[in-house]
């Protein structure tokens, strides 16, 4: 079961499992006894079958377009975004779009090559759950989430940029 870090740095466990994209011609292999995250486009393709299920969430890869879920995001209990490499920053834009443009309110989870020093950016871009890469020291997550007490910009965590706070 993965350890999941929350926004405040606390650690919990759950059993959401990420189902990889099946090879061409293969079908999704969803476990019967465990909640599962499936590729977002396949959830949409099987909408009649999956919609409304609280044990099925979706995941996006960094090159995927979150626009495909416009209008459906809040039907999902969990949306995960994969960071295939920690230096691939596309997931930050996906996170902000899901939250700020499509109004997603449930759990948004960072998965993949998730390292300590990227948590602060994920937090500001709307991620509220992080599955740290297994070899990293999870006890340092809280510190790394909280190096900064404020930021200059508006992002998902605040819609008031510093220049507006200063003016008031």
């Amino acid at each position: 079961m993965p350890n999941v870090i929350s926004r405040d740095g606390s650690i919990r466990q759950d059993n959401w499992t990420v189902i990889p994209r099946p090879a061409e011609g293969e079908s999704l292999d969803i476990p019967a006894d465990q909640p599962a995250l499936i590729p977002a486009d396949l959830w949409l393709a099987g909408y009649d079958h999956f919609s409304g299920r609280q044990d099925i969430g979706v995941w996006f890869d960094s090159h995927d377009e979150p626009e495909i879920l416009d209008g459906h995001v809040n039907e999902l209990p969990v949306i995960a975004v994969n960071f295939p490499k920690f230096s691939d920053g596309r997931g930050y834009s996906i996170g902000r779009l899901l939250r700020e443009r499509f109004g997603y309110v449930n759990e948004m989870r960072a998965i993949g090559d998730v390292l300590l020093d990227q948590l602060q950016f994920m937090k500001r871009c709307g991620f509220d759950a992080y599955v740290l890469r297994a070899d990293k020291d999870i006890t340092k997550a809280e510190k790394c989430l909280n190096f900064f007490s404020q930021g200059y910009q508006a992002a998902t965590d605040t819609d008031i940029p510093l220049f507006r706070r200063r003016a008031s």
Partner: protein
Amino acid sequence: MYVYDEHDRQMAAERVAQFRDQTERALAGELAEEEFLPLRLQNGLYVQRLAPMLRICVPYGMMRSNQLRRLARITRDYDKGYAHFTTRQNVQLNWPALEDVPDILAELAEVEMHANQTSGNCIRNTTTDQFSGVQFDEIADPRPYCEVIRQWSTFHPEFAFLPRKFKVAVNASEHTDRAAIQVHDIGLQMVRNDAGELGFRVHVGGGLGRTPMVGPVIRSFLPELDLLTYLEAVLRVYNRYGRRDNKFKARIKILVKALTPAGFAEKVEAEWQHIKDSPTKLTPEAINRIKTYFTEPDYMALENATDTLASQRFEHRGFDQWLTHNVDTHKKPGYAIVTLTMKKTGTPPGDVSDRQLEQIADLADEFSFGEVRVTHQQNVVLADVRQDRLFELWQAITPMDFGTANLNTLTDVICCPGGDYCALANAKSIPVAEAIQRQFDDLDYLYDLGNIDLNISGCMNACGHHHVGNIGVLGVDKKGEEFYQISLGGSSQHDASIGKILGPSFARDDMPSVVSKIIDVYVSKRTEEETFLDTYRRVGIEPFKERVYA
């Protein structure tokens, strides 16, 4: 200039603590080298040929005397007693020890300096015209907007891991472009529309490096309050769609080219429609608040010192030359803009000793309200000097080697650190600069040749901006030997253009004579009023080729 408030100070201190923690984890082996790499780069720290190199940010080139003195102290305490002014208005230290860097950053933070985002695949230091706020022909002072961009881009959570580095430059002068905005990822030209409202013409996708390009206009007028939302839209499109599979095709210029400028503009416009009225939209109060930091200093009501200067010119030929070349017209009567040249032959362009940093600080306090500006030509500007004190200033700087009256001439070379220091370089650049400076040591001849930009880069990364030099020199490696390729006709001005390669490259020893031949062609072909660039544009590259490869 801008002064930190409690918010800036808090974030600067938190950043130092964060980097200290990151460095400790790296030294303890908890961060793999490839994981620490972007973290240290975003703090300006390279690991170079001989030692780490720390690039310290000088936001849009502005510095106060106390900051210069602190830099001097840091070079003494942690380095070898000198620093280097870069072609992006920053300052580099060439020999700091990795474990000392957190302490250096703490010392910098005390004087409101930092090394944030001076490297790495993020939004870099925004640059602008070194004559901002003191010249006649600017639409508005661009520095408040640079500061607005600085704050927005600092630790931006969405854009910390872009496909590649990202550079923004702002220009406000109608007739000149000292900021070279058309060869930046985003170039912002301040303009007024027909209604007289302030805004920006937006160029996107210019750049040097492997694929040099002049940035096309993707929006002819962007109202000033929309600046940040529009930048955010450009960056978001780039972050999502810029190539990440090939480092050499990852700059935004490649995306703009692939989509076509019109196609790219359309994508940005669509994204912008969603966010243009978001809280990131600037307010007049926010802009006015920043503008209060860039008000005029306490100028005295003076007359132009025309007669005094005329007689001093008559008495002292050296002063006359210096006044003609290194001093520019100020918007206020009785004041002048002085450029201190850091181009003494025999010293690497842009290099200064700790003592010189302190001398510059003293000069700033004595002559120019305690402020200086670093230029992308690697010189230093005192922007507010009284005309009736110019002679005194000239006498003071001559023994300091800041008075070489070669500004904008052939020997005012832009030059990267090259193979002497930089791990990326294919060839040395400093010895080429020096050899050419020695070849052209007659000031009268240089003045006769007029303004010529000679830019030298030690590799494709083009830190010496060779593509936009009227004469550009690029170091190349041929089977382990250093050769130099020449291009002609580049310009970073409003008429920006990328230089054309002359032909096969040359050995280093041949470079002074090759440049001499190029100059000879210009001298023989020019009409009375033509600059080198004018002549080149009229006659084309062929006459130069014929002479050089004869």
